[in-house]
């Protein structure tokens, strides 16, 4: 993991006009300590040694970069799947939780909280808390508790307490609100492991750094397989945007690599039931960050919709808002139905059942403009086990 700054965040946490730390005073001491210490802590030799060792032996890294021949034939281009779905716990989320739990221990914190949407980040947090013997509380929207019940049970098996968020849309944004409230009430002993590149500085930068291992590996693996380390396209889904931030990280300065971020269009971008933030959002301040999010004319947050709990968030992280604003990344979207069809497509062509979130990235492969000999790396961020109930219901299995 290189200490070099890739996303060009300034010392106050701004990516262009986006970012910052719009926190209430109650969170100031914790955020200030993180801002001052996170780089020194995570690039210290002992930390790196422990982090990399856990990624290798516990998470199972490096994850394979797999040439998907039948999928490539189908889309008439060269598609490589970065198999984050093979990480321990089933998604890329654990790269970040391993990093943050080591950080929390070095900060002397004795209690961990987290928010979760699909439950993948909650499971990844509960997992590292079990590993490090720290008590763990995960906030999860009531709606998500219902639609991702296997993950709720997994968290409980791992010893975490799952607390329902009962306000608002009762999904990811409300779980984030509840976690922030918990942190306000417990500022001394608690570390809040934010699961995406959202929230106040330094969280977006820190989470992107922990996830940057994804693109670091892609470069090496692609060089071995194709003789060049930069693909023509990198495609990833975006809710808050952590897997995309990690997959894009080491390609940012290579302008020839086209970055494609895929948002959830729900029932259709303009259907009123969507989570396509860059299409529908405006700049504002939500969850302590100045970024793009879906809101009314009066500045109230609009409740999003996506069949995928992990993408059912009204905003995107400030890193992605800046990539959109500067046009460094292209932002596409896929509907609920397109994502479901993509799940089946990957299952039948490659024998891989992806998570609903990752399926959104697959669903746009015919519209990214890739030519026959272009190399496309698709970040397959998670596996579909957690979505089985939805697949059974929606695909009439």
């Amino acid at each position, binding site marked *: 993991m290189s200490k070099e700054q890739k996303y060009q965040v300034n010392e106050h946490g701004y990516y262009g006009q986006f970012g910052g730390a719009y926190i*209430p005073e*109650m969170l100031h*001491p914790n955020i200030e300590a993180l801002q001052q210490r996170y780089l020194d802590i995570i690039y210290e030799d002992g930390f790196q040694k422990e982090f990399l060792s856990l990624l290798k032996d516990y998470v199972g890294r490096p994850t394979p970069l797999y040439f998907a021949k039948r999928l490539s034939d189908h889309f008439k281009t060269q598609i490589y799947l970065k198999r984050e779905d093979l990480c321990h716990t089933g998604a890329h989320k654990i790269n970040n939780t391993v990093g943050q739990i080591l950080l929390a221990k070095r900060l002397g914190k004795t209690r961990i909280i987290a928010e979760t949407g699909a439950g993948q980040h909650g499971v990844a947090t509960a997992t590292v808390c079990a590993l490090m013997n720290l008590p763990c509380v995960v906030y999860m929207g009531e709606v998500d508790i219902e639609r991702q019940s296997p993950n709720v049970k997994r968290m409980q098996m791992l010893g975490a307490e799952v607390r329902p968020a009962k*306000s608002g849309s009762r999904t990811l944004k409300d779980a984030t609100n509840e976690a922030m409230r918990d942190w306000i009430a417990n500022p001394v002993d608690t570390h809040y492991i934010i699961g995406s590149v959202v929230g106040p500085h330094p969280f977006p930068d820190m989470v992107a750094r922990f996830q940057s291992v994804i693109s670091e590996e892609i470069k090496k693996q692609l060089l071995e397989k194709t003789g060049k380390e930069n693909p023509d396209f990198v495609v990833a889904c975006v809710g808050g945007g952590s897997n995309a931030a990690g997959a894009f990280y080491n390609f940012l300065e290579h302008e020839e690599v086209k970055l494609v971020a895929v948002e959830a269009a729900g029932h259709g971008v303009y259907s009123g039931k969507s989570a396509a933030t860059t299409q529908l959002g*405006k700049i504002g*301040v939500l969850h302590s960050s100045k970024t793009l999010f879906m*809101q009314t004319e*009066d500045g109230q947050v609009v409740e999003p919709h996506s069949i995928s709990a992990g993408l059912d968030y009204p905003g995107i992280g400030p890193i992605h808002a800046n990539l959109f604003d500067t046009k460094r990344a292209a932002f596409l979207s896929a509907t609920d139905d397109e994502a479901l069809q993509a799940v089946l497509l990957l299952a039948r062509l490659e024998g891989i059942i992806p998570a609903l979130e990752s399926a959104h990235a697959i669903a746009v492969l015919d519209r990214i403009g890739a030519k026959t000999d272009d190399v496309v790396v698709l970040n397959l961020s998670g596996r579909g086990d957690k979505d089985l109930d939805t697949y059974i219901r929606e695909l009439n299995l």
Partner: protein
Amino acid sequence: MNRLKSLFQQKDKNILSVFCTAGFPELNSIIPVLEELQNNGVDLVEIGMPFSDPTADGPVIQYSNTIAINNGMMLKVLFEQLKDIRQRIQIPLVLMGYLNPALQYGFENFLRDAHACGIDGLIIPDLPMYEYETFFRQKMEKYDLQNIFLVTPQTAEDRIRKIDELTNAFIYIVSSNAITGGNTDIEQTQHTYFQRIKEMKLKNPTLIGFGIKDKKTFDTACEYANGAIIGTAFINAIDHSQNLKTDIAQFIQEIKPV
């Protein structure tokens, strides 16, 4: 002169500030609420600007925000309601709420309209010191709107000193590490914290808020600060009120008999 300044010049103890969400319980409630609060001797009112995601607030204030938004409250409506308020209300008025609705209104327009209505100050919990100094301070000063900062049990002494330098209104002492609406009595650790702040002899007056809910907690807070702020308990008192006049009179008289 700014009404906040003249209040604190005339009075230095037992100041009662009440918080009420605009548009709660009914869309047009804020005018009668302000009148009754003034009639009952309340010194200062914080008018809450509702937001869908009030992360520093507890369930009661969030509930009042949701009701207010559903009632159709928005800044445009609020400023229309408050247009002639200074013909009837003389006590200082402060707007309290999260940053985003003001940003969408256009921050300068927001300041202009607040100033035109006779608002004296702003409490924006998610506007921290760096962002205030860098992007907002000049504009607020241009419209004579005092920014009111929060101080918590975790705020370091040098930071409290800096806040004391940056403001000319009052300092909002958050009583504990909690969101609004805490339901416990004031504990020994809080006495120690209040005493520590008191001994700093700040140039600005101080008001204690969060968890102040009745006469007992109000009186305790007033031993250490110039006064206290009641929010959640007041929201509960007027929820589903059939008669704002009597309910408000009863609530205030129990805390601070005239």
